[in-house]
């Protein structure tokens, strides 16, 4: 299975480069092979090989009993998945995009998230809801919303947001093995991106802990938190800032619920400045929670007001130039980091 990955040698150590799509596919494959109770359900996951080809080859390998093509009934098949999880199976429910999960949100919250609590521990729900989240390119208002903040507000759920192939593999395996409902937010634009991985990551027992953020790049002047696609932009912003003498520490959150407050606060206590970056709507967003956590726990360490970068407070427009203005760009992150470092910056972005 892993032999299809391209092997490049980096600095003498053995590393392969795999795309996020390959990472997710291999993680699903390995978990389904290890545990016969794991099954995949969703629209176009079988014969179509997955709407975004994430489940390629799985129908052929595991058969129609374990890879189910459903009719277009989010509420129905999500409920069915939850019921199966009640009785000990481990479903992986795919939403073609998380926008469609709104048709099923009653089951995600009321049947899945709250059940362990309502039954006083008798019924646990080992289910994974996964699919692309957030904006793609030119897909309009109803296909572009980020649901991280909504789901992360809910007790009983775990919310994961992988960025790289290593994140995708490790977090999906952890999610499938987890006894609680997990919302696994992928990103369509990251599927084709390739990342170098070590041999450890390619091993079938590889797993990442849920609730631990990763410091992608260490720095000493400002902490920038991001998740999913925004991590890539933050890293680019860090390069630009480095040229101006600002050393940024980039935190890849990986887990929105539970949020790794320790890592974030420890970082801010080191750098004394915070910029949060997210793609979703600004009000009540992930950044709001992070900023509050830092103000509550590390107020004395802050040398500058916290900065939040989020998507525009509008439904996603279709026109290409408006869409670009509605989503954070590298320049926005750079400007916010400079503001936090008391550098002079123009207030408005140029179009």
């Amino acid at each position, binding site marked *: 299975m892993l032999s299809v990955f391209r092997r490049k040698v980096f600095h003498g150590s053995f590393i392969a480069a795999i795309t996020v799509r390959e990472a997710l596919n291999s993680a699903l494959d390995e978990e389904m092979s290890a545990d016969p109770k794991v099954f995949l359900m969703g629209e176009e996951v079988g014969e179509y090989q997955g709407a975004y080809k994430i489940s390629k080859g799985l129908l052929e390998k595991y058969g129609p009993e374990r890879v189910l093509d459903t009719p277009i009934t989010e509420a129905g098949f999500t409920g069915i998945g939850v019921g199966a999880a009640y009785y000990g199976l481990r479903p992986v429910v795919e939403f073609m995009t998380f926008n469609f999960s709104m048709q099923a949100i009653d089951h995600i919250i009321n049947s899945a998230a709250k059940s362990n609590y309502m039954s006083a521990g008798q019924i646990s729900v080992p289910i994974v809801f996964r699919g692309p989240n957030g904006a793609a390119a030119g897909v309009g208002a*109803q296909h572009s919303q980020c649901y991280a903040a909504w789901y992360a507000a809910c007790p009983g759920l775990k919310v994961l947001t992988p960025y790289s192939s290593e994140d995708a593999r490790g977090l999906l395996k952890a999610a499938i093995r987890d006894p609680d409902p997990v919302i696994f937010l992928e990103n369509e634009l990251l599927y084709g991106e390739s990342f170098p991985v070590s041999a450890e990551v390619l091993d079938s027992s590889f797993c990442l802990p849920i609730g631990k953020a990763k410091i992608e790049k260490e720095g000493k002047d400002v902490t920038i938190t991001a998740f999913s696609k925004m991590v890539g932009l933050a890293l680019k912003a860090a390069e630009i800032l480095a040229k101006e003498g600002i050393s940024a520490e980039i935190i890849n959150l990986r887990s929105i619920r539970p949020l790794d407050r320790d890592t974030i606060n420890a970082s801010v206590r080191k750098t004394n400045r915070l910029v949060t970056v997210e793609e979703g709507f600004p009000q009540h967003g992930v950044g709001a929670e992070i900023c509050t956590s830092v103000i509550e726990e590390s107020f004395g360490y802050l040398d500058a007001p916290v900065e939040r970068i989020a998507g525009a407070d509008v439904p996603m427009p279709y026109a290409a130039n408006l869409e670009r*203005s509605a989503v954070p760009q590298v320049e926005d992150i750079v400007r916010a980091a400079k503001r936090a470092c008391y550098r002079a910056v123009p207030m408005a972005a140029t179009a």
Partner: protein
Amino acid sequence: MATAFSSIGVIQNPHCESRSVPSRKLYSAVLGSTQKFRFNPPSRSISGCSETLGKPSPIYAISEVFKEKKRKSASSSSGLLITKEEGLEVYEDMVLGRCFEDMCAQMYYRGKMFGFVHLYNGQEAVSTGFIKLLKKEDCVVSTYRDHVHALSKGIPAREVMSELFGKTTGCCRGQGGSMHMFSKEHNLIGGFAFIGEGIPVATGAAFTSKYRREALNETDCDHVTLAFFGDGTCNNGQFYECLNMAALWKLPIVFVVENNLWAIGMSHLRSTSDPEIWKKGPAFGMPGVHVDGMDVLKVREVAKEAIGRARRGEGPTLVECETYRFRGHSLADPDELRDPAEKARYAARDPIATLKKYMIDNNLANEVEFKAIDKKIDEIVEDSVEFADGSPQPSRSQLLENVFADPKGFGIGPDGRYRCEDPKFTEGTAHV
């Protein structure tokens, strides 16, 4: 003249074609099968041929008015289904739809159009057959496959093309895109990306029509709503909830199922326990009708009855149009799962070619007139592309417009006044 609402007995129809019928055994064999489909779907047209599938006759709820109408119209005129003027109007509308969609594909591959684009090639008979019978005040609710519904309803090709290019001259100022076409003037409500989403909205529009007549005493308000949706939608809960309420409250709505047998790569037969969608109408107390959606004249006949029923206040109808999309689900769909033989069969039933043949055979029009229309449409579509190309992109200040009808919804700014009153509000970055 045959109407489409008669029971399944044999009705002579001048353009009945013989079709092969798969056996009942094949039907049950493919349900739940993991094999790729290699068969031709059953094509029963109630308004035509007498083949059955060896199943018991379907039961309709048929109102007496239909039977009465059928008796009356059987004694009328020439037996032709359409006049020359109507025929050419219908032809022009279908060619506009086809030509426009083909141009969309070209523009997409040239990068002028982006995101999700779902084309309607092959299904023109349904859009034209229904929408051309409506008044301007009647309402059409569609799905993401809405370009041709927009054109048939009367939105100028220029505005639709501009919208697709994301320009400020589009029908939604570039803010909606391919999947979200709206027009208050022409009463086109969407453009919904989520399947099933448009059905309750359409039911609400029909409710308004009835409310205006009964609660607001506008006794001449007889507006009808058409809800277009696909076969995949018919497995969604919202569909059933609306069938129930529309029948319960006798709303002036027609539920038009564009059954093209495929929901992206999911075959209708693999996903539906009982694939005959028209049957779901009588279960809720409304007539359910199946019609050959590749033949615009048959669709028109059924549409006249259904829209007439709604206008007279007799309640909803469920019409299942058996049709086919010649292209993939969207321009990003590789379309590998559909059998080429199936595609070829339906290509042979191209609605535009069928209508043209009927009109020529019955001496309603000649080649020259058709060519003139083709040329006219080509010019309209070319012009729409030029117009869209030359139109400006939305200005930056448009980003924050139209979020609220009352822009005070953006709240009060740091200076104590409403943010919308500050002229700099729409000029700055839209950051928190």
